[in-house]
C-alpha cells in the first residue's frame, strides 16, 4: 500500500470520524469528503475496471465521474462530493481488483 496522497495543510482540529476503507480503519475528520478521507490515508481511490491501473480521482467537482466507490451494502458514492460519515464501510475494489463502480 502506497503512502497518503493528499496532505492536510490546515483545519486539522476538527472532530474525528471513524470509517473503514476495504476493512481497514481510517480516521477521517468531520467535513472530509470520502476522497479526502481515503487519500489522506492512502495513495489511491479505486482501480480502473479496464486493467490500466489505479486511479485517485481527477476533477474534484463532480464532473469526471472517476472517483466512484462502494459501500458494503452495495450503494455507490461519488467520493469527491460525498461527505464521510461515522461508520461508513467503503470498498474501493483496490484490494481485490474488483469493479468499483
Amino acid at each position: 500500500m502506497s503512502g497518503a496522497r493528499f496532505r492536510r495543510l490546515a483545519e486539522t482540529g476538527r472532530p474525528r470520524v471513524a470509517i473503514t476503507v476495504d476493512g481497514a480503519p481510517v480516521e477521517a475528520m468531520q467535513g472530509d469528503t470520502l476522497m479526502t478521507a481515503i487519500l489522506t490515508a492512502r495513495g489511491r481511490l479505486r482501480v480502473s475496471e479496464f486493467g490500466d491501473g489505479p486511479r485517485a480521482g481527477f476533477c474534484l467537482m463532480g464532473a469526471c465521474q472517476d472517483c466512484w466507490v462502494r459501500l458494503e451494502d452495495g450503494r455507490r458514492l461519488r467520493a469527491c462530493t460525498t461527505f464521510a460519515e461515522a461508520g461508513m464501510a467503503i470498498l474501493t475494489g483496490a484490494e481485490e481488483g474488483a469493479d468499483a463502480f
Partner: protein
Amino acid sequence: MRSDRIVIVGAGPAGMRAALVLAGAGLNPVVLDEAPASGGQIYRRQPRGFTRAYDKLYGFEAGRARALHAAFDADNRIDHRSGTLVWNIEGRRLQTLHDGRPETVEFDRLLLATGAMDRVIPFPGWTRPGVYTLGGAQVALKHQACAIGRRVVFFGASPLLPLVASQYAAAGAEVAAVLDTTPLRAKLAAMPGLLAGGKTGWKGLVYLARLAARRIPYRHGITPVAALGSESVEGFAYTDASGRRHEIECDAIAFGYGLKSEWQLADLAGCGFEFDAGNYQWQVVADEAGRSTVPGVYLAGDGTRIGGAELAEIAGERAARAILTDLGDTGQGAALAACARRIGGQARLRRAIERAFPFPAPLARAIPDDCILCRCEAVTAGEFRASIDRLAPHDVNRAKAFSRVGMGRCQGRICGPAAAEILAAARGVEVKEAGRLRSQPPVKPVPVAAFADAAEDAA
C-alpha cells in the same frame, strides 16, 4: 407576472446574482444546485466546522464572495434547494434527484447558470494517481484544506495556472515549478490587453510576483511529455521552448487549458449552439440579454461564455432583468444597458486572456497512440485513430459510436475536446467541422435504486 414559476439551475455567481435580482423584484425564484451549499466553484464554501477566513479562501475576491454569500443567505424569497441534481429537461419539466430522491420541478422560465470545468488534453500518464485538473487542485485546497501531494508541478495554459500555484505556495505546499505551454512572445503580446482591462491583469502579475518571490520557476513555451512513475506520480517530463527535455521530481501534477462550459442541460433543452473562435469551443447561442434560442430559457455565466466570476455575476443580473422584461416589466431598460456596458467594457480583456492562455490544439492532435484518450473506458488515442481509419466517421458522435470515446460516465466532458481535434486532424478539417458531442440524459450518473424506491413508495 407573479405566478410565473422561475427556476434557476446553478448557485454560482451567475445564478445567485440572478436570484437576488428576481427576488428584489418581488418574485420567488427556485434555485436548484447539486452542491450542499451555494457559491459554485469559484465562491465554493468550505464545509461547516472549518474556520479559515474569507481572505484565505478567496484572496482578492474575498469581498465579492462575502457580499454575495451574505446577500443570498439573507434573502428568504429565494427557494434554494441544495443537493439537487438536474439530470434531464423535458418540455417545461426538470427531472431532478434531490438528496437521492427523484423529483419533478416545473417551470415557466428557466435560467441555466451551470458553470464550467477545466478543459484538458490527455498526456502520457495522466490517469495515474496524483494527476489532477487545476480546478480540482484548487477545490482540494479551498474546500478541504488539502494539497494534492507534497511537491506539485503545475502546467498548462489557463488563468488558473498562476492563481492556483500561488494559492498552493501561500498555503504551505511545495510548488516544484509552474510550466506554461504558451510561448513567452504570445504572453507578452497579450500583456497590453491584459493590463488595460482593469484589475484582473494586474492581479495576474501579483500571482507571478508571489511565485517569483518564493523562487518558484515559471517557464513559458513548454510541451508536456509524461507523468513519470508506475503506481503513482514520481515526476514530470517536459521539453522546454528550445526542445530540450527536462524531468522534475514531484508526487503530484495539476494541469488544464482554460475552462469549458457545462452546457449539457442547454443541449437537452434544445438550445442552439455555435463554435466560438475566441474561446475555441462550442457555446450556447445567447442574445445580447442572455436569451437562448428556446423561448423561456435563459443563460448566464461560464456555462454560456467563459468569462470568470465577475462577468458571470453581471450576466446573471442581465438575464434576470431580461426575464423581468419578458414578464412585462418595462422599467428594466436602463439597468439592462448598464449590464451590457459593464460586460462590453471587459471584451478587450477577455480577448487578451484568450490570447494569453490559448488552447494548444496541436498538442491534442499529437497525443501519442499509446496514451489513454478516454479515461472512463480506457481507450487509447491509437485505438481511436484506428477506428477513424477503419470506419471514417464524419463527426464526433459517429466516432463515439465506433470507439466508445465520449460514451463513458463523464459523457465526453473530459476527452471531448481532444477527441474532436484528433478526428479533425484525421479528416484534414477544422475542429468545428468535427461537430459537438450530443448530451444525453441523465447528464450525470443517477442510481437506478432511487427510482425503484420511489416506485415502491408510490405503489
